[in-house]
């Protein structure tokens, strides 16, 4: 499967930049956060793509099976913790957005800037 050897990385690049586009081009703060979590997922995909070994299986050692190739456990450990940390930090972002909505009455970036300028 030489042809698809780099496909995961291309998808990583596209998803990463899709998320980045939402962060830089969208004015809505919740949309920015959704973009940020897509960006984050792309990074997860990059790491997990690196752990695969040909003919390997998940790094849970089977009893009585010798000469089994196992995939790399290290990227999995990093991403496993990052997923849970990701949702907690996204929640923090959402909490701040809720407070912004309560203070300014809007979560659109340009409207907030206008309110700031006029005050």
């Amino acid at each position: 499967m030489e042809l698809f050897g780099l496909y995961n990385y291309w998808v990583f690049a596209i998803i990463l930049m899709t998320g980045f586009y939402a962060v830089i081009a969208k004015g809505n703060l919740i949309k920015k956060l959704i973009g940020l979590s897509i960006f984050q997922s792309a990074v997860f995909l990059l790491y997990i793509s690196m752990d695969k070994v040909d003919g390997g299986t998940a790094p849970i050692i089977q009893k009585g099976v010798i000469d089994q190739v196992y995939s790399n456990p290290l990227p999995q450990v990093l991403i496993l913790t990052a997923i849970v940390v990701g949702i907690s930090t996204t929640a923090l972002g959402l909490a701040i957005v809720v407070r912004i909505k309560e203070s300014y009455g809007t979560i659109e970036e340009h409207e907030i800037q206008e309110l700031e300028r006029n005050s």
Partner: protein
Amino acid sequence: MVILFAVFLLTLLVFTAVAIIRTTNLFVAVMLSGIFSLLMAANFFILDAADVALTEAAVGAGITTVLFLGALALTVEREQTVPDGRWVSISVVVLTTLVLIYATFDKPRLGDPDAPVHQHVAPWYLGQTPELIDIPNVVTAVLASFRGYDTLGEVFVVFTACIGVLFVLGARQENSQSLATPPISNTHGLRHHLIPRVVGRLLIPFIVLFGLYVQFHGEYGPGGGFQAGAIIATAMILSALLEGEAQALRAVPRSTLLGLIVVGPLLYGAVGLAGIILGGNFLDYSVLAQSSVSGQQLGILLIEAGVGMTVCGALLLIFHAFASREKL
């Protein structure tokens, strides 16, 4: 053949991501994020990362959707379109994508056994885990023992994020009467929907049981504290959805949850300090029991329990913080 499945799923992933960005309806974006998470989990599983796929399943299947919907309920559901400056961003993004894709040509192809990432510490972890710790799941071994310091940091990040949410949302709203009785708008939950209520009540014990299984079976199969915490938190969120916010808080009060997120990191740290007191290094579990191997296993059990408590308590507190806030 399986790699073709992965290619198909990745292609769907790209379509989903683009659709999430293009829709102006935030509710739709949240729903599509659910599909995105499902695709991600399937991909992780095909790429041999069972533990990561279980984490994505535990977090993405319920909690992410519930939190985003909670935030949408407090804000707005539509975004306004601002067309100015769009082409600049698009060109920046396309250019960067092309540069990134150009850079991938230097990467080893997927599954290359000679890739640099497989040469460094990974073979050592895989080779030494049966000897030093003697548990089948190498991911748990690396997470809890070899890289325990790292995981301690992550637990504290979850803890800090939860404290942050409580600070930002826990403050008294101007129009509410007192802090002691937080305004609860949805006291009923889904109580008059009989079918979800009966099925949900039936399932909640099973979800908690499955969570405990994932927690304590984490050394032998995919699982561990992070996944178990998220699964048990999902069970509690389900009960809050069915019975109403107030009833859920009566069953598991806020003080219990606060206790959980405090005790979790403390337990983790205490296990680390116990290592120092017994003559080893910080987070060196070998000295905790008679033999080095059983000491390691005891240490992993304890810190996984700490992780599970922290994650469960933090996610539930975050959920309650969103759910009990009133829209202004």
